[in-house]
């Protein structure tokens, strides 16, 4: 009956809840959203191109900055592709530690997600609880590699260093403590009337559409598709661990929340299994052309000195070819498509960032919602602008 | 003590300003406000009378006037919103649906 004019409003790139420098141009009818146009590129760093000028190990350090909430996973994805190019076998202990680190990283990433998501919806305390536990995980990371965020812990064929003494016990203490904390988060939110009102039925997407839009990770599973690369296409020995793939039903914000909470519990399970079955042995493959020799052999062995010199100066030179190994990161399918021309530097590195693919669904999810719902939806797809802009 | 006629003068002046405003202005919102001003001029007179007669009924009538004004404002402003969405302006000279 009455036609109304719409208002165009600019949300971001400096908005408190666009999770980084995402800019959304919203067309509003009152408080209802008519159109959402995401604008990206405010964090463009040119990582993909820069990789072409670095050796493989140097390039790996840059992947820390992509999805800066889960650097371990970026490292792993990059290393898996590189290792496939090089054709080196990773020893079992290194694989187990990689799984351990990745699952801790998944917990840490989900904790940041839960905290910020809850804060966006107005639940303030959850954020501080989550960051308290994440802090412990970061301390654990610092212990193994000296950095909390820019970890760069993995190397071609293994790890940069073995675990310090007593480390497994400390991880075990953390996991035991953490499992109670998850109940605490759930106690604050899962059956909270206000939380339910804000999340149930918001930003719905069904399984078919979710697949067509290229959703992956927890967002896809929330729509009811049990797709988890750790199960369907195992890497780093994930097939040895017993865990479930939590799926949702409705594909709304609430289901995405439930799926991620369940994933944190599953990650804790995997960590426990990894701790229990931690194999002994070398932390890095014994492949002279690919991995650096142990430090102490440099003084006694001529070969070691030469290999060390060559790897440091020339870098690892994989044979020509291409590789793509996807992993299940905390956000979804993450993989690096890499082309080698036989030199020490990759010919092309192309990243498949889960956040980028997940973000493109946002305009569809936000259609007809209110501004407050949009905030909830942005939070629920868990984007990190570092890997969207690359 | 202030004589009653002083209050009546203020009341009449306010009412007059309201009337002049209606002839003077053209956007409907301001016209509406002028009507409110007129009502208030009358209210003042009523209360002054109720004080000086003395009869409390004057205050009761003011009470009803305020009630009616509230109802009137709700409907009037709703009409204005509807009109604005329809015509994109609130100019009383250009609102002439009734003139055929």
């Amino acid at each position, binding site marked *: 009956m009455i036609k109304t004019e719409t208002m165009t*409003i600019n949300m971001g790139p400096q908005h408190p809840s666009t999770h980084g420098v995402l800019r959304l141009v919203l067309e509003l009818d009152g408080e209802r959203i008519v159109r959402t146009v995401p604008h990206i590129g405010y964090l463009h760093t040119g990582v993909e191109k820069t990789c072409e000028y670095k050796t493989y190990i140097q390039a790996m350090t840059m992947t820390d900055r992509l999805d800066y909430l889960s650097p371990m996973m970026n490292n792993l994805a990059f290393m898996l592709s590189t290792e496939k190019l090089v054709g080196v076998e990773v020893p079992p202990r290194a694989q187990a530690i990689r799984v351990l680190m990745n699952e801790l990283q998944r917990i840490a990433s989900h904790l940041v997600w839960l905290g910020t998501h809850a804060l966006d919806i107005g639940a303030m305390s959850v954020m501080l609880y989550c960051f308290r536990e994440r802090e412990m995980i970061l301390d654990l990371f610092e212990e193994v590699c000296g950095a909390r965020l820019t970890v760069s812990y993995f190397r071609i064929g293994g790890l940069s260093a073995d675990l310090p003494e007593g480390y497994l016990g400390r991880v075990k203490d953390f996991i035991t403590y953490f499992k109670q904390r998850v109940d605490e988060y759930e106690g604050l939110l899962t059956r909270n009337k206000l*939380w339910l009102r804000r999340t149930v039925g918001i930003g719905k997407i069904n399984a078919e559409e979710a697949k067509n839009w290229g959703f992956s990770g927890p967002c896809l599973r929330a729509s009811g598709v049990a797709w988890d690369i750790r199960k369907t296409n195992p890497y780093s020995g994930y097939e040895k661990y017993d865990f479930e793939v939590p799926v949702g039903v409705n594909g709304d914000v609430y289901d995405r929340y439930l799926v991620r909470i369940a994933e944190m519990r599953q990650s804790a399970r995997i960590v426990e299994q990894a701790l229990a079955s931690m194999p002994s042995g070398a932390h890095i493959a014994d492949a002279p052309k690919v991995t650096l020799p142990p430090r102490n052999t440099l003084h006694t062995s001529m070969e070691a000195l030469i290999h060390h010199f060559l790897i440091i100066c020339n870098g690892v030179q994989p044979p020509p070819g291409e590789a793509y190994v996807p992993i299940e990161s905390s956000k979804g399918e993450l993989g690096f498509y890499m082309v080698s021309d036989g030199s020490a530097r990759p010919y092309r590195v192309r990243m498949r960032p889960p956040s980028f693919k997940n973000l493109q669904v946002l305009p569809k999810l936000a259609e007809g919602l*209110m501004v407050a719902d949009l905030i909830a939806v942005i939070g629920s797809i868990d984007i990190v602008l570092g890997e969207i802009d690359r | 003590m202030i004589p009653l006629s002083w209050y009546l003068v203020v009341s009449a002046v306010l009412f007059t300003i309201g009337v002049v405003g209606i002839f003077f202005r053209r956007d409907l919102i301001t016209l509406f406000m002028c009507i409110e001003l007129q009502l208030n001029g009358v209210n003042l007179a009523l209360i002054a009378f109720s004080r000086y007669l003395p009869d409390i009924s004057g205050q009761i009538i003011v009470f009803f006037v305020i009630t009616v004004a509230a109802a009137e404002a709700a409907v009037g402003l709703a009409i204005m919103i509807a009109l604005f969405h329809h015509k994109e302006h609130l100019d009383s000279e250009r609102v002439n649906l009734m003139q055929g």
Partner: protein
Amino acid sequence: MIELLIIAVKCLVVFTAALLGVPFMVWFERKVVAHMQMRLGPMYVGPHGVLQPFADAIKLMFKEDFLPPQANKVVYYLAPVLGMTTAVLAFSVIPFGPQTNLFGLLKEPIPLQVTDLNIGLLIIFSATAMGVYGIVLAGWSSNSKYPLLGALRSTAQMASYELSLGLSTVSILMLAGSLSLNEIVNAQAGLYWGFIPRWFVFQSPTGFAAFLLYFICGVAETNRAPFDLPEAETELVAGFHTEYSSMKFAMFFMAEYVNMIAVSAIATTLFLGGWHGWGAGGDTSYGWVIGLGWFVAKVISLLFVYVWLRATLPRLRYDQLMAFGWKFLFPASLVTILATALWISRQVS
């Protein structure tokens, strides 16, 4: 002449107390929230950070006062002043304690209340009704979209919740039979069976319901979590005061906290017996101190609930907020009034 002097002194004391309540409240909130979240909160300025709000105030005073280029200057300056004034106004009619001669300092005992009007409660409602102007004008005059959205939200919110706020006090008026806050407080004097105080929350079965309704509406009126939509920082950046800086921002900030204290003080006066409690008042020379202590203690416990809510609950959505106000609070307060009327008629017959 001495009466005028006493009133002036009282005004000054109450005004200062209200303004000093703000830094205390800021500190209290930060500390309580911090401990609920297992951290320490401010610790550096003063013992346990008590001086932190003062440090913040000094910082704000020296910050650049920014005027948005497209802003409507007069209204832009007027809005924070309006917000602050209306917030403090409510304290003018609240009784803080029994009559006292201040340990024999004065010949005649004076009531611990700026002025006792027989329409005291209506004065408070006028103050709340005017409070919305500060927010609306701030949002409009900034000439920016987020503040405008915040202002529109808060107009709708405050207008809707004011209704239930008023209705929830009607049952108290029926029990007390007066609009004068002094008489309302005095109607709550005494004890049942020697130990349960005759506060209105305990006097009638509907008293507690009315108290809950009042407090919920009060939280919404003061734009606090979970009803803090007009300034929901994750949605509207900072709502109506997005464009404000320096002292003008500080005035909005103070107005919010003064309003919280005011709502708590009014709830205390209306429902929790004001300054009445065990040992308050009476003929002893120190009875008024106990009364004042009771009053402050009750206000602080209500403020604690405010903070508790903020630390616990997520925020409602705008339409859910309106629906809650109109579809639940409004009918509920009407039912409370009806139930109180029935209860009173039973008591009388």
